[in-house]
């Protein structure tokens, strides 16, 4: 402990007393219930470098943090020496609207950045479920995405350049500030989704998109999962400017009932289709889509739902709320949130499997999917969140895993009680590329001091 006291003193001399949390204050920064010994909030890159050099000297483990909204993602840590927050790095360093690019510091708040970009008729085409505090650095580290990924892709399709501070305090950069670039290895890809295990992200350059001239969301109710096997490809193969294709089962609809308003529960599956274009274009497209689905050979005809423009926006917000994996300290999750990745064509059958699995536990499992991408979020409800039955939850997860394996898919347990996470592989089983992943980790962080034990395979 005295060693860490020494570190605290040294850190204080670098960042000042205001930017160091010790004692009881660190409770707010607990990760999966494990409070750090120290929390440091450096003001700039130079201080981050100094902090990392000191952490190295004291052999302290370092847990990078943005806004803190998604800190529960990953395997629970065993002990936490130092939480390093980049939240004070909040500057937009460059923004040339005509280039459709911007360079920001990692601690920039995502919603605030979108506000600035929107004022110029542009946006960063990511729409993950976020909190008000979520930072762009955090979004990159966790590779968050949302329903618009169907049209715009994910961070890997938009991140043009990065600067990081390595575990030894050295600042390095990769990529650039232009939209097309093959100059050197594409380290951007490596940092995306690396959960802070390789280096501390400090600067990000993004490719931006113009805001669509308008949007229209339509709902289609399907009476049976089997019909989805016809409905999904029909929607995806029509010539539409389709930005999102969300699929909800009845239990998920129920969870969103307030926002869905008049949506009747008799449709076991609800498809939310979002189109982009001028109002004339989206109306026209919506009409054609509706006609095509009415013509499709289905067991039961689809039910068509429409909403007012404000209601449409609320719907997508509600979906984000459903998929948000909170990390609030002390919060007891009321569900396991599992992100499953499948081929789109396997989604209908998988939906049916989830119904069966839920029925076996005597509870309906809410399911919400970015169906066009084959990304399915399954919720396994917890009967008594205050005293979860860990054995039973693990059994449910195992049953789901077997099902995912049948489709050769994979899954990440995005949210769960710590006791559950401690007894399962949050990131699923390792594959034949794991040896290489471990070697890469070791190359960047030889002593495994950055976010240790939290990532795939215990990296």
């Amino acid at each position, binding site marked *: 402990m005295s060693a860490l006291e020494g570190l605290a003193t040294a850190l204080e001399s670098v960042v000042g007393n205001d930017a160091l949390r010790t004692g009881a204050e660190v409770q707010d920064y607990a990760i999966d219930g494990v409070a750090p010994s120290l929390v440091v909030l450096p003001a700039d890159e130079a201080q981050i470098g100094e902090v990392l050099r000191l952490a190295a000297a004291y052999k302290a483990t370092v847990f990078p943090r943005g806004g803190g909204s998604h800190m529960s993602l990953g395997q629970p840590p065993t002990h936490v020496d130092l939480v390093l927050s980049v939240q004070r790095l909040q500057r937009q360093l460059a923004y040339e609207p005509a280039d459709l690019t911007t360079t920001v510091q990692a601690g920039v708040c995502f919603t605030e950045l979108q506000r600035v970009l929107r004022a110029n008729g542009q946006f960063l085409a990511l729409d993950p479920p976020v909190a008000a505090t979520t930072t762009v650095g955090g979004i990159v580290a966790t590779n968050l995405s949302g329903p618009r990924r169907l049209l715009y892709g994910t961070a*890997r399709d938009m991140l043009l350049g990065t600067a990081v501070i390595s575990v030894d305090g050295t600042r390095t950069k990769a990529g*650039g500030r232009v939209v097309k670039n*093959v100059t050197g290895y594409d380290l951007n890809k490596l940092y*995306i989704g690396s959960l802070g295990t390789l280096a501390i992200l400090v600067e990000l350059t993004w490719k931006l998109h113009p805001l669509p001239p308008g949007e229209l969301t339509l709902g289609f109710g399907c009476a049976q999962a089997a019909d989805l096997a016809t409905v999904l490809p029909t929607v995806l193969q029509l010539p539409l400017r389709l930005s999102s294709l969300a699929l909800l089962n009845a239990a998920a609809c129920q969870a969103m009932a307030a926002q869905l308003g008049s949506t009747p529960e008799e449709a076991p599956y609800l498809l939310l289709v979002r189109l982009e274009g*001028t109002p004339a274009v989206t109306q026209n497209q919506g009409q054609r889509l509706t006609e095509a689905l009415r013509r499709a050979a289905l067991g039961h005809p689809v039910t068509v739902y429409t909403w007012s423009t404000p209601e449409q926006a609320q719907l997508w917000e509600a979906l984000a709320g459903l998929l948000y994996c909170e990390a609030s300290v002390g919060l007891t999750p009321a569900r396991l949130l599992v992100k499953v990745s499948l081929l789109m064509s396997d989604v209908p059958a998988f939906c049916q499997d989830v119904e069966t699995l839920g029925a076996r536990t005597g509870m309906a499992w809410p399911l919400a999917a970015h169906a066009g991408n084959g990304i399915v979020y399954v919720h396994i409800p917890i009967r008594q969140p205050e005293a979860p039955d860990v054995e039973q939850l693990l059994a449910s997860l195992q049953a789901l895993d077997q099902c995912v394996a049948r489709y*050769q898919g994979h899954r990440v347990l995005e949210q769960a009680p710590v006791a559950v996470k401690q007894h399962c592989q949050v990131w699923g089983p390792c594959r034949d590329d794991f040896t290489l*992943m471990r070697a890469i980790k070791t190359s960047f962080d030889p002593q495994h001091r950055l976010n240790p034990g939290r990532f*795939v395979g215990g990296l």
Partner: protein
Amino acid sequence: MDTHLLQELAAIVAPMPVLSTPEDLLVYECDGHTLDKAPPSAVVFPTTTEQVVAIVKLAHQHTIPFVARGAGTGLSGGALALDGGIIIEMCRMNKILSLDYVNQRAVVQPGLVNLHLSLAVSDAGYYYAPDPSSQGSCTIGGNVAENSGGPHTLKYGVTTNHVLGLEVVLPDGTLVHFGGATLDTPGYDLTGLFVGSEGTFGIVTEVTVRLLRKPQAWKTVLAFFPSAEAASNAVSGIIGAGIIPGALEMMDNLAIQAVEAAIQAGLPLDAGALLLIELDGIADGMEEDATRIADICRQHGCQGVRIAQDEAERALLWKGRKEAFGAVGRLSPNYYTHDGVIPRTRLPEALRRLREISATHHLRIANVFHAGDGNLHPLVLYDERDTAEVTRVLQAGEAILRTCVDLGGVLSGEHGIGLEKKNCMPWLFSDDDLAVMHHLRQVFNPHELCNPGKIIPLRGRCRCGAVTTDDAVTPAVQEAVAAALEGAHVRA
């Protein structure tokens, strides 16, 4: 090469031959970048993944460098076998292994020609989006290595945005799989890291790619401007207005003249520059976008607009663009292509500086490029028989790349660094930046046997102080350059 080793190689790939005579190897001494030459010691043609594994294991065991080669259309010397290594020619592994239209996926072997994939899925209504100008001959494996682009990458992205999974033979012969047909594979994105690693991380033996639905409609527009500056401003105007066309290409006057002489497309020879603008996607709203684009062009001094009336005319307009490099070959015996990228808004300044470089070095420079991306392709015209001119070409090339870096850009948008530009890397990257890249390469390729001597200038620059092949190859490369300058044919 040692006869015994040649026999072992032959046993692996039998009944395919192993090339090892000087006359056979001549073809493989360079790729599309012809200023550097280095003959391999042997060329093998594997037909299966197992054979690639066996070849790589053999090379690893005997510490022989090796490099995978596709069609050899690369423009940065990426497929050169330095240190007398083995070339593993992947062109016989050219099958489409599976097509899944519902999920818009294809699994292909690396030797498959880019265009052949799009042709194979065309009747079903699909295509493979990355479309390098060499797509009629370049291979998907080569595209993966170089992270190739093309005119339509402005809207649809480059190779990395369309590759979902890879099967890779690592430099020690281990077979691994990255990513796959499903998205967001947990763990590091090794697929994304591998794409664009220019053959230095291993050899790809299978590629899972995304197929796209063919656009419902196209609108192809040619707009003529009095100057390249006016055309550049129109480019910024179009993008700034929130319109992202499928392609947005520019040709300057010199390029227009060459193309017109070659294919007689009816281009106005007095135009300072032209923009080839292609809208694609859904038919709804396309007419409005085309009108807006025409308005923006007129605001920037556009002298005339020509809209393709049918598929034949569209094909003709694109023929002019796709064959422009070849057409420029009419203007001089040789040319040297650069590939720097700048922020779009700096185009007018970049083109002004290119004109200055042209004047200072007494060289003609034609520009045919991806204006929407800010990806320049200055073609420096010269005659290789004039050694003084060749020296000026190299100096001008350096000045061009310096300009790109000065304007906030990078060295290469789609051709790669390879051997050609590796010594320019320190203009953009610090020793520390390069050290990270080098350490990463050592994870994949610890003995630097797999495509050695590319991308990173190691000599005296790397803090890790590793023994590198760089020192060994430099004389060979110098020799090769000398040979090139002494009248070896530089492809036009």
